[in-house]
């Protein structure tokens, strides 16, 4: 049965809202119905869903009827539809807030441009530009990062210039004396009817203050001091409790938050049972995800206050910019 397209349009217009109320539906439109993989000549109301499931696995209310006012429906799986994010593409000149990474990593965020001895460098994290201490000075840095399709040599934008090594905590100690003490303390814990256990650590020579590195752009015209969706940096400011902050990152773009804790000492996981203790950190609520590492964190006046490097579902952990600048000898 061939339906008149204007009639289908009217019906879609009338039912669009109800169809979109279904949480699985991400788009509705008009298309030729596809049967057994072949396009037919019948117009249909096409509902795009995140995941196509058999009716038996759906709540009755979430099952899309096979026809609406006499017009057949078609359900196709498109997945979640996202805005095309410039943040993961190749951009020249490259601004802050976009994908970057050491040739052997996935991808992180290009934070911003900084100066050292009057030369311009790209600032991001050690784990973004120096592959968690495994990088060699001079290693190629790609924009976008390898996970976002960055390839050597076409996307080679800079060379690793300097990084602050991360002191990783050792795995729980094998030393019998130390374990003996922990065992004794754990025994005490048991006596007071608590399952809290004391762990043994080797003492860190130095507590970590920053996860930071810089890379030297090949060509100064390949980079820009702008940060996507933020603009230019207007100096620096020391982070304080309650300060409103924002960042522009590869994965979640522009997000805002507030400094909820200062003087934070925190154990950060780097995967595979590798952890590192960081001190004098800033903590904000959720404002980042994987890939946002290296984002510059600014206050409402575009003053640089930190370098984002870690987080959980509910928190974001930020190095103080003064510690980053001191460690690497940087200025704006």
């Amino acid at each position, binding site marked *: 049965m061939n339906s008149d397209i204007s009639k289908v349009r009217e019906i879609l217009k009338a039912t669009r809202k109800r169809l979109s109320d279904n949480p699985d539906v991400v788009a509705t439109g008009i298309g030729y119905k596809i049967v057994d993989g072949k396009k037919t000549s019948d117009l249909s109301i096409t509902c795009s869903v995140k995941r196509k499931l058999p009716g038996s696995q759906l709540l009755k209310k979430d099952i899309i009827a096979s026809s609406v006012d006499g017009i057949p429906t078609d359900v196709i799986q498109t997945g979640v539809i996202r805005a095309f994010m410039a943040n993961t593409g190749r951009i020249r000149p490259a601004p802050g807030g976009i994908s970057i990474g050491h040739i052997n990593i996935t991808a992180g965020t290009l934070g911003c441009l900084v100066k050292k001895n009057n030369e311009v460098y790209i600032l991001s994290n050690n784990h973004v530009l120096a592959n968690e201490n495994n990088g060699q000075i001079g290693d190629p840095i790609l924009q976008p990062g390898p996970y976002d399709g960055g390839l050597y040599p076409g996307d080679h934008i800079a060379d690793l210039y300097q990084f602050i090594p991360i002191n990783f905590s050792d795995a729980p100690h094998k030393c019998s004396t130390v374990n003996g003490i922990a065992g004794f303390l754990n025994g005490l814990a048991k006596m007071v009817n608590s399952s*809290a256990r004391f762990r043994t650590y080797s003492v860190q020579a130095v507590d970590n203050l920053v996860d930071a590195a810089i890379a030297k752009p090949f060509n100064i015209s390949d980079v820009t001091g702008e940060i996507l969706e933020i603009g230019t940096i207007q100096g620096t400011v020391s982070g304080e*409790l309650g300060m409103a902050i924002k960042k522009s990152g590869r994965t979640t773009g522009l997000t805002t938050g507030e400094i909820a*804790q200062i003087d934070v000492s925190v*154990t950060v996981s780097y995967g595979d049972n590798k952890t590192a203790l960081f001190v004098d950190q800033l903590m904000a609520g959720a404002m980042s995800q*994987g890939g946002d590492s290296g984002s510059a964190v600014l206050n409402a006046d575009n003053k640089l206050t930190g370098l984002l490097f870690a987080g*959980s579902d*509910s*928190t974001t952990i930020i190095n103080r910019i003064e510690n980053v600048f001191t460690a690497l000898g940087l200025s704006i």
Partner: protein
Amino acid sequence: MLPTIQEVKEKHQAAILKIEGVISIGVGLKKDKTPAIIVGLKQENQDTIRSIPSVLDGYPVEIQIIGSIKAQ
């Protein structure tokens, strides 16, 4: 002179961070905007919570469940 909240946090943080399940300690504000030492846990665990004092040298301690913190 009374020690500052930062000094108190510094003094106790090594012991607090050794408690299994504790992932962070910092200085923040409670809902009523008064300063507190905030201890972050990987997950809700009554044994861990019982092992953390509610006051350290006169400053209140607040516990927050923050999940595992990963490099991003």
